[in-house]
Protein backbone atom coordinates (compact mmCIF):
# COMPACT_ATOMS: atom_id res chain seq x y z
CA UNK A 1 0.00 0.00 0.00
CA UNK A 2 1.34 3.44 -0.88
CA UNK A 3 0.64 6.11 1.63
CA UNK A 4 0.56 9.75 0.50
CA UNK A 5 2.85 10.75 3.39
CA UNK A 6 6.51 9.93 4.00
CA UNK A 7 7.64 8.12 7.16
CA UNK A 8 9.12 11.39 8.38
CA UNK A 9 5.83 13.26 7.93
CA UNK A 10 3.98 10.55 9.82
CA UNK A 11 6.58 10.55 12.55
CA UNK A 12 6.28 14.33 13.08
CA UNK A 13 2.49 14.06 12.83
CA UNK A 14 2.38 11.44 15.54
CA UNK A 15 4.99 13.06 17.76
CA UNK A 16 5.03 16.77 16.99
CA UNK A 17 8.01 18.62 18.54
CA UNK A 18 7.86 21.94 20.39
CA UNK A 19 4.11 22.11 20.77
CA UNK A 20 2.24 24.84 22.61
CA UNK A 21 2.70 28.47 23.56
CA UNK A 22 5.63 30.31 25.14
CA UNK A 23 4.76 32.47 28.11
CA UNK A 24 5.54 36.11 27.24
CA UNK A 25 6.91 35.36 23.77
CA UNK A 26 9.23 37.86 22.13
CA UNK A 27 7.46 37.34 18.84
CA UNK A 28 4.27 35.56 17.83
CA UNK A 29 2.01 35.02 14.84
CA UNK A 30 -1.10 33.15 13.75
CA UNK A 31 -1.62 32.23 10.13
CA UNK A 32 -4.78 30.84 8.55
CA UNK A 33 -5.39 29.21 5.21
CA UNK A 34 -8.45 30.34 3.30
CA UNK A 35 -8.22 27.25 1.09
CA UNK A 36 -8.81 24.59 3.69
CA UNK A 37 -9.45 26.37 6.98
CA UNK A 38 -6.26 25.28 8.71
CA UNK A 39 -4.51 27.55 11.20
CA UNK A 40 -1.04 27.56 12.66
CA UNK A 41 0.43 29.65 15.48
CA UNK A 42 4.15 30.28 16.11
CA UNK A 43 5.78 31.75 19.29
CA UNK A 44 9.47 32.61 19.53
CA UNK A 45 11.90 33.61 22.25
CA UNK A 46 14.91 35.58 20.99
CA UNK A 47 18.28 36.31 22.62
CA UNK A 48 18.47 40.14 22.50
CA UNK A 49 22.24 40.19 21.98
CA UNK A 50 22.87 37.41 19.51
CA UNK A 51 19.43 37.66 17.86
CA UNK A 52 19.22 33.90 17.93
CA UNK A 53 15.96 32.00 18.37
CA UNK A 54 16.45 30.35 21.76
CA UNK A 55 12.99 28.78 21.95
CA UNK A 56 10.15 28.21 19.53
CA UNK A 57 6.73 26.61 19.89
CA UNK A 58 3.87 26.02 17.49
CA UNK A 59 0.15 25.22 17.60
CA UNK A 60 -1.98 23.72 14.84
CA UNK A 61 -5.65 23.54 13.99
CA UNK A 62 -5.01 21.57 10.89
CA UNK A 63 -4.39 18.47 8.89
CA UNK A 64 -1.42 16.11 8.99
CA UNK A 65 0.75 18.18 6.63
CA UNK A 66 0.06 21.28 8.65
CA UNK A 67 1.05 19.60 11.91
CA UNK A 68 4.17 17.94 10.48
CA UNK A 69 5.41 21.15 8.84
CA UNK A 70 4.79 23.13 12.04
CA UNK A 71 6.85 20.58 13.92
CA UNK A 72 9.78 20.47 11.45
CA UNK A 73 9.90 24.24 11.17
CA UNK A 74 10.50 24.56 14.91
CA UNK A 75 13.39 22.12 14.64
CA UNK A 76 14.87 23.97 11.66
CA UNK A 77 14.58 27.41 13.27
CA UNK A 78 15.73 26.67 16.80
CA UNK A 79 19.20 28.08 17.46
CA UNK A 80 19.30 30.02 14.20
CA UNK A 81 19.69 33.81 14.02
CA UNK A 82 16.63 35.74 12.86
CA UNK A 83 18.32 36.45 9.52
CA UNK A 84 19.05 32.75 9.02
CA UNK A 85 15.59 31.69 10.12
CA UNK A 86 13.92 34.14 7.73
CA UNK A 87 15.49 32.28 4.83
CA UNK A 88 13.88 28.95 5.71
CA UNK A 89 11.40 28.22 2.93
CA UNK A 90 8.71 25.68 2.16
CA UNK A 91 11.04 23.65 -0.05
CA UNK A 92 13.52 23.14 2.77
CA UNK A 93 10.75 22.20 5.17
CA UNK A 94 9.28 19.78 2.65
CA UNK A 95 12.72 18.23 1.96
CA UNK A 96 13.41 17.86 5.66
CA UNK A 97 10.14 15.91 5.85
CA UNK A 98 11.03 13.65 2.94
CA UNK A 99 8.53 15.36 0.64
CA UNK A 100 4.90 16.49 0.93
CA UNK A 101 1.99 15.82 -1.44
CA UNK A 102 1.70 18.81 -3.84
CA UNK A 103 -2.01 19.23 -3.10
CA UNK A 104 -1.08 19.88 0.53
CA UNK A 105 1.26 22.80 -0.26
CA UNK A 106 -1.15 25.44 0.95
CA UNK A 107 -1.67 23.86 4.37
CA UNK A 108 2.03 23.20 4.91
CA UNK A 109 3.24 26.58 3.68
CA UNK A 110 1.32 28.12 6.58
CA UNK A 111 3.93 27.04 9.11
CA UNK A 112 6.67 28.73 7.08
CA UNK A 113 4.58 31.89 6.89
CA UNK A 114 3.93 31.58 10.62
CA UNK A 115 7.64 31.53 11.37
CA UNK A 116 8.32 34.54 9.13
CA UNK A 117 5.44 36.48 10.63
CA UNK A 118 6.62 35.70 14.16
CA UNK A 119 10.07 37.07 13.27
CA UNK A 120 8.50 40.14 11.68
CA UNK A 121 6.37 40.56 14.78
CA UNK A 122 9.54 40.45 16.92
CA UNK A 123 11.27 43.03 14.72
CA UNK A 124 8.28 45.35 14.82
CA UNK A 125 7.93 45.07 18.56
CA UNK A 126 11.63 45.75 19.08
CA UNK A 127 12.00 48.68 16.71
CA UNK A 128 14.09 46.69 14.27
CA UNK A 129 12.07 47.52 11.18
CA UNK A 130 14.30 49.70 9.03
CA UNK A 131 11.74 51.24 6.74
CA UNK A 132 9.24 52.99 9.01
CA UNK A 133 6.26 54.11 6.97
CA UNK A 134 3.25 55.58 8.78
CA UNK A 135 0.39 53.11 9.21
CA UNK A 136 -2.50 53.68 6.82
CA UNK A 137 -5.95 52.14 6.43
CA UNK A 138 -4.54 50.17 3.48
CA UNK A 139 -1.73 48.69 5.58
CA UNK A 140 -4.26 47.67 8.24
CA UNK A 141 -6.54 46.12 5.62
CA UNK A 142 -3.65 44.15 4.17
CA UNK A 143 -2.85 42.73 7.59
CA UNK A 144 -6.50 41.82 8.23
CA UNK A 145 -6.32 39.60 5.17
CA UNK A 146 -4.31 37.30 7.42
CA UNK A 147 -7.06 37.06 10.05
CA UNK A 148 -9.23 34.05 9.40
CA UNK A 149 -12.79 33.44 10.42
CA UNK A 150 -12.90 29.73 11.29
CA UNK A 151 -16.61 29.63 10.54
CA UNK A 152 -16.17 30.35 6.86
CA UNK A 153 -12.58 29.22 6.50
CA UNK A 154 -11.90 32.55 4.79
CA UNK A 155 -10.22 35.76 5.86
CA UNK A 156 -12.14 38.76 7.24
CA UNK A 157 -11.45 41.03 4.29
CA UNK A 158 -12.38 38.48 1.64
CA UNK A 159 -15.65 37.69 3.38
CA UNK A 160 -16.44 41.41 3.74
CA UNK A 161 -16.66 41.21 7.51
CA UNK A 162 -14.48 44.29 7.98
CA UNK A 163 -17.01 47.13 7.95
CA UNK A 164 -14.74 50.03 8.84
CA UNK A 165 -11.11 50.90 9.58
CA UNK A 166 -9.92 54.22 10.99
CA UNK A 167 -6.38 55.28 11.95
CA UNK A 168 -6.12 58.36 14.22
CA UNK A 169 -3.06 59.41 16.22
CA UNK A 170 -1.75 55.89 16.66
CA UNK A 171 -5.18 54.41 17.45
CA UNK A 172 -6.50 51.83 15.00
CA UNK A 173 -10.24 51.19 15.15
CA UNK A 174 -11.66 48.15 13.34
CA UNK A 175 -15.37 47.40 13.02
CA UNK A 176 -16.14 43.73 12.38
CA UNK A 177 -19.54 42.56 11.24
CA UNK A 178 -20.00 39.69 13.66
CA UNK A 179 -21.92 39.71 16.96
CA UNK A 180 -20.07 40.02 20.28
CA UNK A 181 -21.43 36.63 21.30
CA UNK A 182 -20.03 34.88 18.23
CA UNK A 183 -18.31 31.57 19.01
CA UNK A 184 -14.94 32.83 17.81
CA UNK A 185 -15.34 36.55 18.60
CA UNK A 186 -12.57 36.58 21.18
CA UNK A 187 -10.24 34.53 18.93
CA UNK A 188 -10.84 36.99 16.12
CA UNK A 189 -10.35 39.99 18.40
CA UNK A 190 -7.04 38.60 19.69
CA UNK A 191 -5.86 37.85 16.19
CA UNK A 192 -6.66 41.36 14.99
CA UNK A 193 -4.80 42.90 17.93
CA UNK A 194 -1.86 40.54 17.36
CA UNK A 195 -1.63 41.54 13.72
CA UNK A 196 -2.00 45.31 14.10
CA UNK A 197 -0.46 46.20 17.46
CA UNK A 198 3.16 45.48 16.46
CA UNK A 199 3.12 48.19 13.77
CA UNK A 200 5.72 50.67 14.94
CA UNK A 201 3.47 53.73 15.22
CA UNK A 202 0.37 51.97 16.56
CA UNK A 203 -0.33 52.64 20.23
CA UNK A 204 -3.79 51.17 20.59
CA UNK A 205 -6.03 48.75 18.71
CA UNK A 206 -9.80 48.84 19.22
CA UNK A 207 -11.99 46.06 17.86
CA UNK A 208 -15.71 46.75 17.67
CA UNK A 209 -18.25 44.03 16.96
CA UNK A 210 -21.68 44.71 15.55
CA UNK A 211 -24.76 43.42 17.33
Amino acid at each position, binding site marked *: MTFPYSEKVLEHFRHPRNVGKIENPDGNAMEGSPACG*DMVGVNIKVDPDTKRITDIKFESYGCASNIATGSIITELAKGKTLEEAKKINWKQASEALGGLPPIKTHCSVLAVEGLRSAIQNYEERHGLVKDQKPTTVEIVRKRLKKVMNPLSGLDLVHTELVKDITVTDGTVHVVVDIPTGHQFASNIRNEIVDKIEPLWDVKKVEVEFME
Partner: protein
Amino acid sequence: MIEKTVYLDNAAATRMDERVLEAMKPYFFDIYPVATSEFGYSLGIEAREALEKARHTLANYIGATGEEFIFTSGSTESSNIAVKGVALSLGEKKGKHIIISEIEDFPVLHSAKALEKQGFSITYLDVDPEGLVNLNRLRDSITDETILVSIQHANQEIGTIQDIETIGRICNEKGVLFHTDATHTFTRVPLDLKKVKVDLITVSSHTIHGPKGVGGLYLRKGTPVTKWMDGGFQEFNLRAGLENIPGAVGFAKAVELVAPEENERLKTMRDHLIDRVSAEIPDTTLNGHRSKRSPQNANITFHFVEGESITLHLDMRGFSVSTGSACFSRSLEASHVILGLGGNHERAHGSIRFTFSRYNTMEEVDSVIDTIAEVVGELRKISPLGNKKEVQK
Protein backbone atom coordinates in the same frame (compact mmCIF):
# COMPACT_ATOMS: atom_id res chain seq x y z
CA MET B 1 1.11 -2.70 12.57
CA ILE B 2 -2.64 -3.20 12.33
CA GLU B 3 -3.96 -6.58 13.34
CA LYS B 4 -7.51 -6.10 12.21
CA THR B 5 -9.17 -3.14 10.58
CA VAL B 6 -12.36 -1.87 12.15
CA TYR B 7 -14.19 -0.62 9.08
CA LEU B 8 -16.70 2.14 9.83
CA ASP B 9 -17.14 3.70 6.39
CA ASN B 10 -20.03 1.53 5.28
CA ALA B 11 -21.90 4.41 3.64
CA ALA B 12 -19.09 4.49 1.08
CA ALA B 13 -19.11 0.74 0.42
CA THR B 14 -19.76 -2.42 2.41
CA ARG B 15 -17.94 -5.72 2.59
CA MET B 16 -19.71 -8.20 0.33
CA ASP B 17 -21.44 -11.14 2.02
CA GLU B 18 -20.03 -14.57 1.08
CA ARG B 19 -23.56 -15.84 0.49
CA VAL B 20 -23.98 -13.14 -2.14
CA LEU B 21 -20.86 -14.32 -3.91
CA GLU B 22 -22.11 -17.91 -3.84
CA ALA B 23 -25.37 -16.82 -5.45
CA MET B 24 -23.49 -14.91 -8.16
CA LYS B 25 -20.90 -17.55 -9.04
CA PRO B 26 -23.00 -19.68 -11.44
CA TYR B 27 -23.63 -16.60 -13.56
CA PHE B 28 -19.93 -16.11 -14.14
CA PHE B 29 -18.96 -19.71 -14.87
CA ASP B 30 -22.01 -21.73 -15.91
CA ILE B 31 -24.80 -19.48 -17.08
CA TYR B 32 -22.55 -16.78 -18.46
CA PRO B 33 -24.27 -15.74 -21.71
CA VAL B 34 -26.21 -12.54 -22.21
CA ALA B 35 -29.94 -12.67 -21.57
CA THR B 36 -31.57 -13.70 -24.81
CA SER B 37 -35.22 -13.48 -25.76
CA GLU B 38 -37.44 -16.46 -25.05
CA PHE B 39 -36.66 -17.61 -28.59
CA GLY B 40 -32.91 -17.76 -27.95
CA TYR B 41 -30.77 -20.67 -26.82
CA SER B 42 -31.17 -22.46 -23.52
CA LEU B 43 -28.33 -20.83 -21.59
CA GLY B 44 -29.41 -17.38 -22.71
CA ILE B 45 -32.99 -18.10 -21.66
CA GLU B 46 -31.76 -19.27 -18.29
CA ALA B 47 -29.74 -16.07 -17.93
CA ARG B 48 -32.80 -14.00 -18.76
CA GLU B 49 -34.88 -15.90 -16.23
CA ALA B 50 -32.29 -15.25 -13.53
CA LEU B 51 -32.32 -11.55 -14.38
CA GLU B 52 -36.12 -11.39 -14.27
CA LYS B 53 -36.24 -13.29 -10.99
CA ALA B 54 -33.80 -10.81 -9.46
CA ARG B 55 -35.85 -7.93 -10.84
CA HIS B 56 -39.02 -9.30 -9.24
CA THR B 57 -37.31 -9.77 -5.88
CA LEU B 58 -36.23 -6.13 -5.89
CA ALA B 59 -39.53 -4.77 -7.20
CA ASN B 60 -41.56 -6.82 -4.73
CA TYR B 61 -39.43 -5.59 -1.88
CA ILE B 62 -40.80 -2.07 -2.34
CA GLY B 63 -44.25 -3.17 -3.41
CA ALA B 64 -43.76 -2.58 -7.14
CA THR B 65 -44.18 -4.80 -10.16
CA GLY B 66 -41.26 -6.15 -12.22
CA GLU B 67 -41.89 -3.81 -15.15
CA GLU B 68 -41.34 -0.88 -12.83
CA PHE B 69 -37.75 -1.70 -11.91
CA ILE B 70 -34.63 -1.42 -14.05
CA PHE B 71 -31.07 -2.42 -13.23
CA THR B 72 -28.29 0.13 -13.62
CA SER B 73 -24.59 0.33 -12.84
CA GLY B 74 -25.25 1.93 -9.46
CA SER B 75 -26.96 4.83 -7.75
CA THR B 76 -25.06 7.43 -9.78
CA GLU B 77 -26.51 6.10 -13.00
CA SER B 78 -29.98 5.61 -11.48
CA SER B 79 -30.20 9.23 -10.36
CA ASN B 80 -28.84 10.48 -13.68
CA ILE B 81 -31.49 8.51 -15.57
CA ALA B 82 -34.20 9.82 -13.26
CA VAL B 83 -33.29 13.50 -13.22
CA LYS B 84 -32.02 13.93 -16.78
CA GLY B 85 -34.54 11.47 -18.20
CA VAL B 86 -37.48 13.45 -16.80
CA ALA B 87 -35.87 16.73 -17.90
CA LEU B 88 -35.50 15.43 -21.47
CA SER B 89 -39.03 14.15 -21.50
CA LEU B 90 -40.86 17.13 -20.00
CA GLY B 91 -38.47 20.08 -20.46
CA GLU B 92 -39.99 21.20 -23.74
CA LYS B 93 -43.51 19.97 -23.05
CA LYS B 94 -44.18 21.19 -19.53
CA GLY B 95 -41.43 23.36 -18.13
CA LYS B 96 -37.82 23.68 -17.13
CA HIS B 97 -38.00 23.96 -13.36
CA ILE B 98 -36.61 21.31 -11.00
CA ILE B 99 -36.50 21.37 -7.20
CA ILE B 100 -33.86 19.55 -5.17
CA SER B 101 -32.49 19.94 -1.65
CA GLU B 102 -29.10 21.57 -1.29
CA ILE B 103 -27.74 18.54 0.58
CA GLU B 104 -28.44 15.97 -2.14
CA ASP B 105 -25.65 13.56 -2.93
CA PHE B 106 -23.54 14.36 -6.00
CA PRO B 107 -25.47 12.32 -8.61
CA VAL B 108 -28.62 14.41 -8.12
CA LEU B 109 -26.81 17.65 -7.24
CA HIS B 110 -24.50 17.56 -10.22
CA SER B 111 -27.20 16.33 -12.62
CA ALA B 112 -29.22 19.38 -11.59
CA LYS B 113 -26.21 21.67 -12.05
CA ALA B 114 -25.56 20.19 -15.51
CA LEU B 115 -29.18 20.87 -16.47
CA GLU B 116 -28.90 24.39 -15.10
CA LYS B 117 -26.12 25.08 -17.61
CA GLN B 118 -28.49 23.95 -20.35
CA GLY B 119 -31.17 26.43 -19.42
CA PHE B 120 -33.14 24.66 -16.69
CA SER B 121 -33.87 26.58 -13.55
CA ILE B 122 -33.12 24.77 -10.32
CA THR B 123 -34.40 25.55 -6.85
CA TYR B 124 -31.98 24.34 -4.18
CA LEU B 125 -34.08 24.04 -1.03
CA ASP B 126 -32.10 24.84 2.09
CA VAL B 127 -32.37 22.68 5.18
CA ASP B 128 -32.79 23.41 8.88
CA PRO B 129 -29.90 22.90 11.33
CA GLU B 130 -30.80 19.22 11.59
CA GLY B 131 -30.88 18.72 7.85
CA LEU B 132 -34.63 18.70 7.25
CA VAL B 133 -36.23 20.34 4.23
CA ASN B 134 -38.94 22.88 5.05
CA LEU B 135 -42.12 21.42 3.59
CA ASN B 136 -43.93 24.75 3.32
CA ARG B 137 -41.05 26.15 1.35
CA LEU B 138 -41.18 23.11 -0.90
CA ARG B 139 -44.89 23.66 -1.48
CA ASP B 140 -44.33 27.35 -2.25
CA SER B 141 -41.50 26.59 -4.65
CA ILE B 142 -43.58 24.44 -6.96
CA THR B 143 -44.79 26.38 -10.02
CA ASP B 144 -46.60 25.49 -13.25
CA GLU B 145 -43.15 25.07 -14.79
CA THR B 146 -41.98 22.52 -12.22
CA ILE B 147 -41.43 19.06 -13.66
CA LEU B 148 -39.57 17.24 -10.91
CA VAL B 149 -38.84 17.30 -7.19
CA SER B 150 -35.81 15.24 -6.19
CA ILE B 151 -35.29 14.91 -2.45
CA GLN B 152 -33.30 12.10 -0.92
CA HIS B 153 -34.69 9.65 1.61
CA ALA B 154 -31.70 9.81 3.99
CA ASN B 155 -28.59 11.90 3.70
CA GLN B 156 -25.30 10.23 2.79
CA GLU B 157 -23.27 12.13 5.39
CA ILE B 158 -25.50 13.10 8.28
CA GLY B 159 -28.18 10.41 7.99
CA THR B 160 -31.16 12.75 8.33
CA ILE B 161 -34.34 11.12 7.03
CA GLN B 162 -36.70 13.38 5.11
CA ASP B 163 -40.45 13.13 5.43
CA ILE B 164 -40.88 11.61 1.98
CA GLU B 165 -44.45 10.59 2.74
CA THR B 166 -45.52 14.22 3.03
CA ILE B 167 -43.24 15.32 0.19
CA GLY B 168 -44.83 12.67 -2.01
CA ARG B 169 -48.29 13.89 -1.07
CA ILE B 170 -47.39 17.51 -1.86
CA CYS B 171 -45.95 16.54 -5.25
CA ASN B 172 -48.94 14.37 -6.04
CA GLU B 173 -51.37 17.17 -5.18
CA LYS B 174 -49.47 19.58 -7.40
CA GLY B 175 -49.08 17.06 -10.22
CA VAL B 176 -45.27 17.06 -10.10
CA LEU B 177 -43.04 13.99 -10.37
CA PHE B 178 -41.10 13.00 -7.26
CA HIS B 179 -37.75 11.20 -7.26
CA THR B 180 -36.00 10.06 -4.10
CA ASP B 181 -32.44 8.81 -3.74
CA ALA B 182 -32.81 5.91 -1.30
CA THR B 183 -29.21 4.69 -1.55
CA HIS B 184 -28.70 5.07 2.18
CA THR B 185 -32.05 3.74 3.37
CA PHE B 186 -32.87 0.88 1.05
CA THR B 187 -33.65 -2.20 3.23
CA ARG B 188 -32.66 -0.15 6.31
CA VAL B 189 -35.67 2.17 6.57
CA PRO B 190 -39.08 1.00 5.32
CA LEU B 191 -40.26 2.52 2.07
CA ASP B 192 -43.65 1.18 1.09
CA LEU B 193 -45.10 2.34 -2.18
CA LYS B 194 -48.60 1.87 -0.79
CA LYS B 195 -47.89 4.64 1.70
CA VAL B 196 -45.46 6.85 -0.18
CA LYS B 197 -46.42 8.52 -3.45
CA VAL B 198 -43.11 8.47 -5.23
CA ASP B 199 -42.46 8.11 -8.95
CA LEU B 200 -38.77 7.29 -9.08
CA ILE B 201 -36.48 5.66 -6.50
CA THR B 202 -32.72 5.23 -6.69
CA VAL B 203 -31.29 2.17 -4.91
CA SER B 204 -27.90 0.50 -4.85
CA SER B 205 -26.34 -2.79 -3.93
CA HIS B 206 -22.98 -1.56 -2.62
CA THR B 207 -24.44 -0.23 0.65
CA ILE B 208 -26.08 -3.53 1.66
CA HIS B 209 -23.27 -6.09 1.33
CA GLY B 210 -24.01 -6.69 -2.34
CA PRO B 211 -21.58 -6.28 -5.23
CA LYS B 212 -20.37 -2.90 -6.43
CA GLY B 213 -21.34 -1.74 -9.91
CA VAL B 214 -25.02 -2.62 -9.71
CA GLY B 215 -27.95 -0.49 -8.68
CA GLY B 216 -31.53 0.03 -9.66
CA LEU B 217 -34.20 2.53 -10.44
CA TYR B 218 -37.87 2.17 -9.66
CA LEU B 219 -40.09 3.97 -12.16
CA ARG B 220 -43.80 4.12 -11.49
CA LYS B 221 -45.72 2.82 -14.48
CA GLY B 222 -46.15 5.60 -17.04
CA THR B 223 -43.48 7.91 -15.64
CA PRO B 224 -42.15 9.99 -18.54
CA VAL B 225 -38.41 9.30 -18.77
CA THR B 226 -36.50 9.71 -22.01
CA LYS B 227 -33.66 7.31 -22.67
CA TRP B 228 -30.42 9.18 -23.32
CA MET B 229 -27.70 6.56 -23.35
CA ASP B 230 -28.27 4.90 -26.68
CA GLY B 231 -27.55 1.33 -27.60
CA GLY B 232 -29.66 -1.80 -27.42
CA PHE B 233 -33.17 -2.25 -26.15
CA GLN B 234 -32.34 -3.65 -22.73
CA GLU B 235 -34.20 -2.79 -19.52
CA PHE B 236 -37.52 -1.97 -21.20
CA ASN B 237 -35.62 0.20 -23.67
CA LEU B 238 -34.67 2.63 -20.88
CA ARG B 239 -31.09 1.62 -20.19
CA ALA B 240 -28.96 0.31 -23.04
CA GLY B 241 -26.06 -2.01 -22.45
CA LEU B 242 -25.27 -5.59 -21.57
CA GLU B 243 -27.11 -6.67 -18.45
CA ASN B 244 -24.94 -7.35 -15.41
CA ILE B 245 -26.63 -10.61 -14.53
CA PRO B 246 -24.26 -11.75 -11.77
CA GLY B 247 -24.62 -8.25 -10.31
CA ALA B 248 -28.41 -8.33 -10.48
CA VAL B 249 -28.53 -11.79 -8.87
CA GLY B 250 -26.10 -10.64 -6.15
CA PHE B 251 -28.14 -7.50 -5.51
CA ALA B 252 -31.33 -9.56 -5.06
CA LYS B 253 -29.53 -11.96 -2.74
CA ALA B 254 -28.19 -9.07 -0.67
CA VAL B 255 -31.73 -7.75 -0.23
CA GLU B 256 -33.00 -11.16 0.88
CA LEU B 257 -30.27 -11.37 3.51
CA VAL B 258 -31.23 -8.16 5.34
CA ALA B 259 -33.24 -9.04 8.42
CA PRO B 260 -35.18 -6.46 10.46
CA GLU B 261 -33.18 -7.46 13.56
CA GLU B 262 -30.04 -6.36 11.77
CA ASN B 263 -31.34 -2.82 11.44
CA GLU B 264 -32.21 -2.79 15.14
CA ARG B 265 -28.67 -3.87 15.91
CA LEU B 266 -27.25 -1.07 13.75
CA LYS B 267 -29.45 1.41 15.55
CA THR B 268 -28.19 0.16 18.93
CA MET B 269 -24.57 0.64 17.85
CA ARG B 270 -25.36 4.09 16.44
CA ASP B 271 -27.11 5.23 19.60
CA HIS B 272 -24.39 3.84 21.82
CA LEU B 273 -21.75 5.81 19.93
CA ILE B 274 -23.75 9.04 19.93
CA ASP B 275 -24.63 8.75 23.64
CA ARG B 276 -21.15 7.83 24.82
CA VAL B 277 -19.40 10.49 22.75
CA SER B 278 -21.74 13.25 23.87
CA ALA B 279 -21.41 12.19 27.51
CA GLU B 280 -17.66 11.63 27.54
CA ILE B 281 -16.04 13.99 25.04
CA PRO B 282 -16.61 17.72 25.61
CA ASP B 283 -17.24 20.19 22.77
CA THR B 284 -18.84 17.86 20.28
CA THR B 285 -21.89 18.42 18.07
CA LEU B 286 -24.07 15.76 16.52
CA ASN B 287 -24.62 16.49 12.84
CA GLY B 288 -28.07 15.56 11.59
CA HIS B 289 -31.30 14.74 13.35
CA ARG B 290 -31.13 12.73 16.58
CA SER B 291 -34.03 10.38 15.85
CA LYS B 292 -35.01 10.94 12.20
CA ARG B 293 -31.80 9.28 11.20
CA SER B 294 -30.70 6.25 9.18
CA PRO B 295 -29.90 3.39 11.59
CA GLN B 296 -26.30 2.97 10.44
CA ASN B 297 -25.13 6.60 10.60
CA ALA B 298 -23.50 8.75 13.29
CA ASN B 299 -21.79 12.01 12.33
CA ILE B 300 -20.13 14.13 14.98
CA THR B 301 -18.04 17.31 14.93
CA PHE B 302 -15.13 17.38 17.34
CA HIS B 303 -14.55 21.09 17.76
CA PHE B 304 -11.11 22.75 17.64
CA VAL B 305 -9.52 19.89 15.68
CA GLU B 306 -9.32 18.99 12.02
CA GLY B 307 -10.88 15.88 10.48
CA GLU B 308 -8.04 14.58 8.31
CA SER B 309 -5.78 14.59 11.38
CA ILE B 310 -8.39 12.52 13.23
CA THR B 311 -8.91 10.05 10.38
CA LEU B 312 -5.16 9.58 9.89
CA HIS B 313 -4.60 8.95 13.60
CA LEU B 314 -7.51 6.51 13.60
CA ASP B 315 -6.22 4.79 10.48
CA MET B 316 -2.83 4.27 12.12
CA ARG B 317 -4.69 2.59 14.96
CA GLY B 318 -6.75 0.42 12.61
CA PHE B 319 -10.04 2.32 12.24
CA SER B 320 -11.52 3.47 8.93
CA VAL B 321 -13.84 6.50 9.11
CA SER B 322 -14.40 9.56 6.92
CA THR B 323 -14.66 13.31 7.43
CA GLY B 324 -16.33 16.33 5.82
CA SER B 325 -13.15 18.36 6.17
CA ALA B 326 -11.81 20.10 3.07
CA CYS B 327 -8.35 18.67 3.75
CA PHE B 328 -9.66 15.13 3.30
CA SER B 329 -11.28 15.63 -0.07
CA ARG B 330 -9.56 15.65 -3.43
CA SER B 331 -11.37 18.83 -4.36
CA LEU B 332 -10.29 20.57 -1.12
CA GLU B 333 -13.88 21.59 -0.63
CA ALA B 334 -15.57 21.23 2.72
CA SER B 335 -18.69 19.05 2.84
CA HIS B 336 -21.61 20.83 1.17
CA VAL B 337 -23.92 18.94 3.53
CA ILE B 338 -22.40 20.20 6.79
CA LEU B 339 -22.07 23.70 5.35
CA GLY B 340 -25.75 23.43 4.39
CA LEU B 341 -26.67 22.92 8.04
CA GLY B 342 -25.59 26.45 8.86
CA GLY B 343 -22.79 27.65 6.62
CA ASN B 344 -20.25 26.70 9.24
CA HIS B 345 -16.78 25.83 7.98
CA GLU B 346 -15.46 25.03 11.45
CA ARG B 347 -18.17 22.42 11.86
CA ALA B 348 -17.17 20.66 8.65
CA HIS B 349 -13.48 20.92 9.52
CA GLY B 350 -13.78 18.58 12.52
CA SER B 351 -16.67 16.36 11.41
CA ILE B 352 -16.32 12.57 11.45
CA ARG B 353 -18.77 10.12 9.90
CA PHE B 354 -19.14 6.64 11.36
CA THR B 355 -21.30 4.20 9.39
CA PHE B 356 -21.97 0.70 10.66
CA SER B 357 -22.73 -2.62 9.00
CA ARG B 358 -23.60 -6.27 9.58
CA TYR B 359 -19.96 -7.02 10.35
CA ASN B 360 -19.42 -4.48 13.13
CA THR B 361 -19.67 -5.40 16.79
CA MET B 362 -20.40 -3.50 19.99
CA GLU B 363 -16.78 -4.10 21.09
CA GLU B 364 -15.60 -2.31 17.97
CA VAL B 365 -17.92 0.60 18.68
CA ASP B 366 -16.54 0.90 22.21
CA SER B 367 -12.99 0.69 20.99
CA VAL B 368 -13.44 3.41 18.37
CA ILE B 369 -14.96 5.69 21.02
CA ASP B 370 -12.03 5.09 23.40
CA THR B 371 -9.56 5.70 20.61
CA ILE B 372 -11.19 8.82 19.26
CA ALA B 373 -11.39 10.29 22.78
CA GLU B 374 -7.64 9.82 23.05
CA VAL B 375 -6.89 11.17 19.54
CA VAL B 376 -9.09 14.24 19.93
CA GLY B 377 -7.52 14.91 23.34
CA GLU B 378 -4.02 14.80 21.82
CA LEU B 379 -4.96 17.03 18.88
CA ARG B 380 -6.67 19.56 21.12
CA LYS B 381 -3.47 19.90 23.11
CA ILE B 382 -1.79 21.32 20.02
CA SER B 383 -4.76 23.36 18.76
CA PRO B 384 -4.75 27.15 19.19
CA LEU B 385 -8.55 27.34 19.28
CA GLY B 386 -11.08 27.43 22.03
CA ASN B 387 -11.27 25.78 25.42
CA LYS B 388 -8.77 23.01 25.63
CA LYS B 389 -10.37 20.97 28.33
CA GLU B 390 -8.81 17.63 29.03
CA VAL B 391 -10.77 14.84 27.48
CA GLN B 392 -12.32 12.68 30.13
CA LYS B 393 -11.49 9.04 30.02
